[in-house]
């Protein structure tokens, strides 16, 4: 039986969503005439500023276009559901946000995104636009530490893009923006847990199977299998498993500061996220780690998947400044 969705035609889902987003957020974002899958900030791009172009497949809203706006990303290239955008919308975004200081490409580390963004970078190089690329690899459950370059980018994008967007908005050089983006990625750690699958608008079929009493720690935001499938545990036990994994790699010292993101993968409600967040804070207090800021909600979803992810960004003074820097995006703002 087809999964239940409030859509018209499956093939039209992405473009109809974009129509609705533009109707709602016309004050902050616009769509380029040259490509209907290029969403650009109305107030961000300007002369002398490094442009920040982000992007990826649809189905992760508010990622990525929700983070387009002054102080964060200048543009987002939109792909089909769970599929990288082709080079064209990326190229048009790049030209639209180029202020003569270079353009930074940031997106999650997936084979398709890498190929399409690299093809776009090759094309705009012919127009003398210098492009640098920083891939996010925050999903520490997706590959061991010695294979960090194989890790996926997931909800930690929120912190990583935020830091890079602030660096760009502060009119720092392309070298500096790239350095800060890399540091942000190096210090951001995410682990997710999935409770039930998602379904694509075109297939309306569950894209993997999961037993009624099962969960999967480390599952990816497209349903990529994670570390282990096991019986569902309590919120505290799940949170402990995730935090243990993150602490194992981040190794925060007493007095260190972090930013916290407890993110819904789609259908897990705020009630459950806040229960997890309670435990996250308990664990951080026990360890003597200070929480600078906490975000709880849907920041990087996987269609209607049930589950959540926890991200910690290990702050230093520079990254704290970037996280606190004001931004005004379609679906997120810092005053």
């Amino acid at each position, binding site marked *: 039986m087809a999964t239940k969705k409030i859509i018209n035609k499956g093939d039209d889902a992405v473009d109809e969503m974009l129509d609705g987003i533009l109707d709602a957020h016309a004050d902050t974002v616009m769509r380029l005439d040259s490509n209907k899958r290029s969403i650009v900030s109305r107030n961000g791009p300007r002369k002398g500023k490094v442009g920040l172009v982000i992007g990826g497949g649809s189905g992760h809203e508010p990622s990525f276009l929700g983070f387009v706006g002054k102080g964060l990303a200048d543009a987002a290239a939109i792909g*089909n559901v769970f599929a990288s*955008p082709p080079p*064209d919308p990326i190229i048009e975004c790049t030209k639209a946000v180029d202020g003569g200081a270079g353009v930074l490409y940031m997106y999650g580390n997936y084979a398709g995104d890498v190929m399409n963004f690299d093809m776009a970078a090759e094309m705009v190089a012919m127009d003398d636009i210098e492009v640098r690329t920083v891939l996010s690899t925050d999903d520490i459950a997706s590959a061991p530490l010695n294979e960090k370059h194989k890790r996926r980018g997931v909800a930690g994008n929120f912190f990583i893009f935020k830091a890079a967007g602030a660096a760009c908005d502060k009119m720092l050089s392309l070298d500096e923006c790239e350095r800060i983006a890399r540091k942000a990625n190096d210090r951001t750690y995410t682990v997710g847990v999935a409770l039930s699958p998602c379904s*694509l608008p075109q297939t309306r079929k569950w894209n993997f199977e999961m037993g009624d009493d099962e969960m999967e720690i480390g599952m990816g935001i497209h349903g990529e299998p994670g570390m282990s499938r096991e019986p569902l545990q309590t919120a505290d036990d799940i949170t402990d498993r995730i935090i243990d994994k993150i602490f194992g790699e981040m190794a925060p010292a007493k007095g260190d500061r972090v930013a916290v993101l407890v993110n819904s993968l789609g259908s897990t409600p705020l009630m459950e996220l806040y229960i997890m967040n309670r435990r996250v804070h308990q664990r951080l207090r026990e360890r003597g780690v200070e929480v600078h800021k906490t975000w709880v909600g849907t920041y990087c979803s996987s269609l209607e998947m049930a589950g959540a992810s926890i991200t910690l960004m290990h702050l230093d003074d520079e990254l704290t400044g970037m996280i606190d820097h004001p931004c005004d995006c379609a679906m997120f703002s810092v005053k």
Partner: protein
Amino acid sequence: MPENAARSLGRMFHLISGAIEAEKDHLSELDGVIGDADHGITMSIGFMAVNATLARLDMETSTPAAVLSIAASAFLNAVGASTGPLYATGLQRASQALADSCELGPVNQAAMIAAIARGIRDRGKSQRGDKTMLDAWLPAAEAAQTAIDTGGGLTMMWQQAIAAADSGACSTRSMIAAKGRAARVGARSLGHIDPGAASAVIILRAMGRTFCPQQATIRVVSSVS
């Protein structure tokens, strides 16, 4: 009057699109096991876009190279994903390989298969054994070339190319993915056919049906789909 080469390619893309459409759900299911379940949809969107674009082209005055190049960008811009750049690069290379040709005999058909395989390999920086579509394309290209070199006719060339692709795709079952999204699954990809290799077989079969009038008598037992 024999069909011109551009028109043959137009018919080829129609047959590919129809074959992918018929196997769309199966391909997505294969992908659901080790990836993100969108492979059938992606391939379907791509080849439908190719056909829609080619429908506006005057085939009478087009060269095979032009048809392949237009197909490459139509596929790329409809799809993105990883299959977009891979097949677009493959088709672009095929266009370059046929740059000076107005005909599509067996030698050029083999050259087209080889160019597609090379383009996919270069763009994806992959090799045989990585559990990708190359495990079907590279053996197919080699088999086609061997058939040409040994004086085999059209039927034999396609029969051997398809058989090689099919057995290559089946061999992905015992491989651990080294590239693409399935690589993140590691050893859990064992036992499952790579969806990209499975769709490559479907494409090659449709290509064979286009060029090989005796295709109905070609018997390659498939264990892929």
